[in-house]
């Protein structure tokens, strides 16, 4: 067997090679495990690697040999973020408070991948309870960016991005609340999809902000993203917010228009890295060259996205995280009485960022402040949704930069101020607030300190229109002519 070219591998190529007998699922899994062995100590992308991955791969090979019917991802090695449950494996959400907790069932998205014969390699690092944009908030140390290990891979799904960019898996799942897949994808030169709210079941996820949370996908090609999305998407009786958008689209009889129209919003680029602005201008030119009709769109209220997001998110998080109290699971810290045990378990179990957001959430929900903050933010959220609704009456998709800059150095933003880190979400949070979908595709790079740091272009489409994101994304990266 010749060495497998993991760098340029896609799901389609891997399936063809395994089908054609160039290499087995075991060979492929071993190639990734070898990379994990040599690279993970430095990158800290994986928190846990599954001992049984090779056995799982062998089972696929045997099935193939016997001519049994194989799933659509037979032998494809996948990494899973540490907020998504894989039955029998420890799940911590990057937090000490859940150390040692063993998942009692598979998340629906994991079960769906398993049913298609995917091979799970392990669990990847995350900011604590997915709160952060760099993985520096993980209780288990930060992950590093494989392109420049002095820089962050982004976050919160930074472990998944780092694992994929370093060829330690072929596809990875992450989760999004305000950009936690698209931002690390941009930082690591990958494709990152945030599906529409409700498109993928969240059963089996640790909840952060239930009205924003979605499962997302990291891949090296837009086609891979689509392949995985088609498998994990769909209504699930175990997640009451899940929607079968496919069926919905069919009944609405959404016809593709003759010429795809792309909207470019007027954005305030104050404080945004000049190289990002320049890169984005080039992408607008590229859109025209690709034959898209490009028009300006108005999104007058997206300037309120970050303030809105950082009210609603802490409010919901403060309620969602109340369950981690050391009583039924996780780390319990002894105390003289029950109250002391709660207070001690939470006091010692939570890191800085969850504490900050829980207190902030408790504050914006408290009597006397509720209307001024939470009540108002809920109404502004409607304004932002309306902005997008109006825009999608004129255009099929909207493009924006994914991040305000390329990957930053470890220990820079995290040490300065929480607000600076929050502003990382400036271009990504609007899609979460509006519940629509977005994909980040690589849009070139900028040279910095001798390294080529990738940037991302974000393609945003209306609820349930991931198909538009994929089609436009493919054109931008050259997968479709």
């Amino acid at each position, binding site marked *: 067997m010749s060495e497998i070219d993991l760098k340029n591998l896609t799901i389609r190529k891997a399936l063809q090679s395994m089908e054609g007998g160039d290499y087995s699922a075991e060979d492929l899994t071993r190639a990734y495990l070898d990379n994990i062995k040599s690279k993970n100590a430095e990158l800290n992308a994986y928190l846990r690697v599954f001992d049984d991955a090779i056995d799982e791969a062998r089972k696929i090979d045997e099935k193939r040999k016997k001519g049994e019917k194989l799933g659509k991802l037979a032998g494809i090695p996948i990494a899973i973020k540490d907020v998504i449950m894989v039955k029998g494996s420890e799940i911590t959400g990057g937090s000490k408070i859940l150390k040692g907790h063993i998942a009692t069932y598979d998340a629906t998205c994991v079960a769906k991948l398993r049913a298609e014969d995917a091979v799970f390699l392990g669990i990847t690092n995350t900011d604590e309870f997915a709160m952060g944009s760099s993985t520096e908030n993980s209780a288990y140390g930060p992950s590093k960016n494989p392109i420049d290990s002095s820089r962050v891979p982004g976050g919160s799904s930074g472990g998944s991005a780092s694992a994929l960019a370093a060829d330690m898996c072929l596809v990875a799942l992450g989760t999004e609340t305000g950009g936690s897949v698209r931002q690390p994808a941009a930082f690591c030169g990958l494709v990152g999809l945030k599906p529409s709210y409700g498109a993928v079941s969240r059963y089996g996820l640790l909840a952060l902000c239930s009205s924003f949370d979605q499962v997302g996908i990291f891949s090296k090609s837009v086609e891979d993203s689509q392949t995985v999305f088609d498998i994990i998407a769909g209504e699930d009786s175990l997640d009451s917010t899940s929607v079968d958008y496919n069926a919905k689209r069919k009944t609405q009889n959404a016809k593709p228009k003759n010429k795809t129209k792309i909207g470019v919003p007027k954005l305030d680029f104050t404080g945004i890295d000049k190289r990002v602005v320049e890169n984005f201008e080039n992408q607008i030119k590229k859109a025209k060259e690709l034959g898209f009709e490009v028009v300006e769109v108005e999104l007058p209220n997206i300037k309120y996205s970050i303030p809105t997001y950082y009210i609603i998110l802490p409010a919901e998080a403060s309620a969602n995280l109340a369950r981690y109290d050391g009583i039924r699971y996780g780390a319990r810290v002894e105390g003289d009485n029950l109250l002391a045990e709660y*207070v001690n378990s939470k006091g010692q179990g939570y890191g800085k960022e969850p504490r900050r957001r829980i207190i*902030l959430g408790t504050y914006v929900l408290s009597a006397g402040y509720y209307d001024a903050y939470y009540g108002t933010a809920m109404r502004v959220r409607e304004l932002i949704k309306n902005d997008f609704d109006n825009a999608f009456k004129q255009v099929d998709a909207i493009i924006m930069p994914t991040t305000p800059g390329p990957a930053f150095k470890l220990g820079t933003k995290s040490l300065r101020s929480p607000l600076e880190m929050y502003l990382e979400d400036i271009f990504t949070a609007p899609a979460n607030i509006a519940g629509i979908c977005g994909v980040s595709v690589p849009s070139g790079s900028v040279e910095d300190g001798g390294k080529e740091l990738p940037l991302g272009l974000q393609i945003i489409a209306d609820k349930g229109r991931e198909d538009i994101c994929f089609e436009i994304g493919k054109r931008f990266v050259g997968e479709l002519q």
Partner: protein
Amino acid sequence: MISKEEVGKLAGLARIQMADEELEALRGELDQIVEFVSQVQKADVSSVPELPMPEHRNVWREDGIPHETGVYTDSIVANFPDKKGDYLRVKKILDNK
């Protein structure tokens, strides 16, 4: 300005033990963040009802047996921080004194 006592009260409500220095540091950070998020008050929300109804509604289902009884018991019990047999052990809630 959020006072240290206020932060202490919030920490108490959230059941999180915090040392004095942490309350102090958090007070400053909260001030900054709250000032920043106050921007939402500049938006003209007069066109939106006070309690906007979300598009997603709760979905009801008939009561039924979701899975075979007991299939998760062992794995759930194994996650208990403290137990006696299959019972979760916690500190006494009511005081007999």
